[in-house]
């Protein structure tokens, strides 16, 4: 079974803090993704990566950055958290040969106060 693990289920941070959300997958997948999920808006892609040290912007990258130093780990960074970044964050991964089949982590619910 593919396992995508997000380091925290719940996180509370203050405005202006630097926030790291970590994601690890154990299936040697090349592709990794970060989404945010908001009621009525579905999932929106923030960033994705198709190889180590490679990254591409998704639909809503503003205010976020990412890091992929190792194949299994994909980090989402909020350089200076703001209240409008309060959301559920989902990480996903997929293999290159079946790139459209994504496997999701349980999500991190981030509250920025």
């Amino acid at each position, binding site marked *: 079974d593919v396992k*995508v693990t997000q380091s925290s289920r719940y996180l509370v941070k203050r405005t202006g803090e630097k926030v790291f959300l970590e994601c690890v997958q154990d299936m040697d997948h090349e*592709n990794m*993704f970060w*989404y945010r999920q908001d009621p*009525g*808006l*579905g*999932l*929106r*892609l923030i960033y*994705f990566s*198709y190889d180590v040290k490679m990254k591409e912007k*998704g639909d809503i990258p503003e205010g976020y950055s990412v890091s992929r130093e190792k194949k299994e780990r994909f980090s989402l960074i909020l350089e200076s958290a703001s209240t409008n970044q309060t959301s559920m964050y*989902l990480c*996903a991964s*997929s293999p290159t040969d079946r*790139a*459209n*089949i*994504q496997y*999701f*982590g*349980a*999500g991190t619910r981030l509250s920025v106060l």
Partner: protein
Amino acid sequence: AQSVSQHNHHVILSEAASLELGCNYSYGGTVNLFWYVQYPGQHLQLLLKYFSGDPLVKGIKGFEAEFIKSKFSFNLRKPSVQWSDTAEYFCAVTVSSGSARQLTFGSGTQLTVLP
């Protein structure tokens, strides 16, 4: 860029009722289509997918979906829902090309099944 519309935001049904959730996409080329489901407190998981071939695809737990190219639709159906089908359902699309990796999701439909 492609987009996905799910017109039903919240659907409430009684057990044994039939279900149809609408999904329309906008993209002029060849697409791959997906339905994902998120049960309460669980992670998002794939329900079914369409890549090519028979436009009627069957997924897990008795769900099926029909791809109607002329209507740009991929509606999800189940003849008789159960209380355990209570979940949020997301339709998603990606363009059918070798390097395609991005999924575009709809806004989701919350299904509540009353016992």
